[in-house]
């Protein structure tokens, strides 16, 4: 029998990027908040201390900061005709585990999705007509606009101290920034990082071709900065151990550096680590959450009664908890009805690697999100007439850290082993750099999340099943974008190039990006979205589901900036409206 605990006002499931912000704000507003985190406590000291944190095998190869799949994983198949099998080791994406979640090991890139992204379907129909969208494409509008989110983007960027350069200040185009971004109310809180050699060459070539390169906005901080919560994030030293690592300098924005120092002092907040939530408990009518059930590190089961439940864990776990708890109708792809699990999407990354004979790039001197970007080919920033696809992605000359276990490019055609390989890796490890393309991914009827009929987690509960493949839209887009990037690469003048568009069947094996999206999507219509525009469950209004699980499809950017904005957006609705009058905020 589970032990029943003293009721609280708010139970937060997952103490990562969104959970820490929401916990801090609601605790400060006077609510009794419990944060339930299935992993352990982690902090800059001692967990990310030198020299042990500069260990590529441990952090990248053996996934030190990432989800322990022995207890819980997902199953995967490309389409519903196949039998899904468990993801036995991490590959394509790397969710976090422990306090801070994936925002401990994230790469730092902090984007605002384009105004177009939030209105993908209606703007596509308006500009191109119905023929531009694939028949089975279920991409839709978000129910929220860029303008509504602007001040929340702003607040998140100032919380995390993002380094960048504005390109559009209240409608005025500013040289040196991204001219395609939505209007922002003010400049970034911190200036851009320094420019690497790769970034400088890319900038030169791109400008010559008429593009408008600008520094990639990132949570690796260009200078020490104290945010509104009184937390100080330090200046980055370009050590190059950033994405997949914790930061020994406390110079990468994260829950640890930006929020936890304040949150852990909140009297109304209690953190429980090793608390693995297995379901949200509902009342008999299944219209109201009465709390959550979790299992602790000794296997004991607890019921934590709560007035509100906020699902703030990773995309995949948010959706799984909804399915396990019976919150909202599961998606049925055959009938195209139901909402939970619908519109799972991902990313369509591709790249061009440039090889040189006589130039060294020192790409190991780097920071997460260090790079120069162009955005000409993102969203609907270019005319898609006749191209046969929608969406795009940003191109970046990336200097995010080259370490030789994971990053050791050799020209195509080089053998995988032996003396010839050895010569190539010795020559090109320091004489190459990539232009990466963060391609978008639309949503489709056949791409969805549900519960696996066969495989179970350590508690005997069904695993989440992912059915996913990219479609013709993504393949055409990737070919087209990667060709554009190759033209820039060619202008830079490498001796060789690997041009690698993404056109093959999606595979869960090689790392691509931890940018899973959807499954508990937001929208204006309860028939086609699991949560309303405030991320509140349509079915159980005292449950909010926060994160990239709310994205109806994925844009051509890293998701974190938009996730942060959604957290503040939700919070604003909870504080200003829900707490005064609990109940549905939309519909």
């Amino acid at each position: 029998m589970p032990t029943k605990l003293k009721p609280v006002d708010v139970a937060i499931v997952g103490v990562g990027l969104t959970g820490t912000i929401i916990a801090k704000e609601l605790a400060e507003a006077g609510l009794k908040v419990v944060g339930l985190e299935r992993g352990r406590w982690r902090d800059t000291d001692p967990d990310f201390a030198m020299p042990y944190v500069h260990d590529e095998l441990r952090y990248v190869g053996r996934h030190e900061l990432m989800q322990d799949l022995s207890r819980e994983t997902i199953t995967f198949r490309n389409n519903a005709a196949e039998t899904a099998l468990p993801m036995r080791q991490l590959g394509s994406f790397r969710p976090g585990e422990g306090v801070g979640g994936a925002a401990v090991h994230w790469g730092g890139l902090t984007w605002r999705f384009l105004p177009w992204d939030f209105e993908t379907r209606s703007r596509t129909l308006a500009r191109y007509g119905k023929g531009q969208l694939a028949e089975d494409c279920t991409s839709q509008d978000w129910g929220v606009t860029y303008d509504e989110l602007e001040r929340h983007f702003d607040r998140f960027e100032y919380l995390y101290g993002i380094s960048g350069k504005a390109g559009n200040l209240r409608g005025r185009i500013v040289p040196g920034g991204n001219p395609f971004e939505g209007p922002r109310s003010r400049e970034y809180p911190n200036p851009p990082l320094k420019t690497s050699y790769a970034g400088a060459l890319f900038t030169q070539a791109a400008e010559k071709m008429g593009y408008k390169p600008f520094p990639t906005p990132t949570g690796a901080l260009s200078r020490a900065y104290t945010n509104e919560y009184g937390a100080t994030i330090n200046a980055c030293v370009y050590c190059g151990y950033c994405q997949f690592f914790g930061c020994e300098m406390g110079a990468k924005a994260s829950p640890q550096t930006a929020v936890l120092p304040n949150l852990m002092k909140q009297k109304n907040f209690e953190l429980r680590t090793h608390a693995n939530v297995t379901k949200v408990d509902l009342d008999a009518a299944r219209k109201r959450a009465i709390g959550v059930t979790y299992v602790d590190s000794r296997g004991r089961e607890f019921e934590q009664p709560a007035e509100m439940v906020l699902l703030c864990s990773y995309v995949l776990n948010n959706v799984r908890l909804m399915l396990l708890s019976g919150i909202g109708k599961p998606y049925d792809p055959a009938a195209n009805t139901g909402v939970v699990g619908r519109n799972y999407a991902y990313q369509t990354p591709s790249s061009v690697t440039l090889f040189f004979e006589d130039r060294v790039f020192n790409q190991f001197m780097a920071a997460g999100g260090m790079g120069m970007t162009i955005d000409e080919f993102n969203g609907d920033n270019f005319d898609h007439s006749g191209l046969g696809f929608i969406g795009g992605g940003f191109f970046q000359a990336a200097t995010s850290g080259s370490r030789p276990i994971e990053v050791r490019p050799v020209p195509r055609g080089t053998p995988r082993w032996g003396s010839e390989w050895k010569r190539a890796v010795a020559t090109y490890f320091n004489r190459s750099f990539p232009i990466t393309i963060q391609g978008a991914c639309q949503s489709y009827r056949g791409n969805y999340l549900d519960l696996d009929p066969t495989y179970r987690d350590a508690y005997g509960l069904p695993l989440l099943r992912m059915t996913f493949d990219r479609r013709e839209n993504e393949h055409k887009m990737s070919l087209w974008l990667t060709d554009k990037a190759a033209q820039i690469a060619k202008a830079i003048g490498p001796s060789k190039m690997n041009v690698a568009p993404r056109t093959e069947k999606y595979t869960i094996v090689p790392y691509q990006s931890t940018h899973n999206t959807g499954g508990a999507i937001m929208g204006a219509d309860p028939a086609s979205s699991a949560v309303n525009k405030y991320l509140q469950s349509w079915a159980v209004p005292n449950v909010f589901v926060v994160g990239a699980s709310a994205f109806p499809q994925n844009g051509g950017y890293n998701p974190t900036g938009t996730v942060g904005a959604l957290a503040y957006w939700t919070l604003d609705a909870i504080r200003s409206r829900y707490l005064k009058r609990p109940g549905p905020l939309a519909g």
Partner: protein
Amino acid sequence: MGQSSGRRWFLKSVTALGGAASLPAPAPAAEPHAQHGTRVPSQTYMYLTQPEVAFVEAAVARLIPADELGPGAKEAGVATFIDRQLFGGWGTMAKMYRQGPWPEGTPQQGYQSPLTPQQVYRIGIGEVNAHCTKQYGSSFSALTAAQQDEVLRGLDGGKIGLEGVRSQFFFNMLLANTLEGFFADPIYGGNRDKVGWKLVGFPGVAAVYTAHVDQHGVPYNAMPVSIQDIVDKVAQVDEHGHPKHVLLTRKD
């Protein structure tokens, strides 16, 4: 150590940042690892049997051979690295999902073997040695280099079929572990004398690069620093624990 002397490295300077004035007192024109003195590479094994060690050493010596560019995977201690990895959590799939059923699945679905890496090596090595004995009359480690390459090419691509484990699966694991062992920090038993890092010009544990990161196109030939070097105080560190890299000029 003779293998690694294909190139000579000379002390040039200490990185400009953070008290660069206080140069350590190096032995000029010395091999970097000479500073380690008498550190003896481990020859003890936790999981692999002696015939298995012989196989792994012979195989990794072909995957990353010693040649005019310097030592290969065998000299780097990759067999020791693989043995320790197999003995530890990775070799027993401590953080991997291990419940059945175990259909083979599609390539897109990834690792679906019911075998742990420990078992993959045990079965794989046994069967490859049996194949070699049948085909060439002796086990893999006793073959000529050309014969060994022929066998490895047969595994890589699946031309040589194995019974207990797919040959490509075994080969991919062996190759991935060889690369890891060649490039991982030496604390794991491979990358001895940081030969992998020296080959490609990777400095290992990072220094503060703020002053260097925008020196475009300027080579940064640092004597690589390992975690062990810092713990042993062979490398000097700044107040945050970043090593002060010693820069070298290269005389080929």
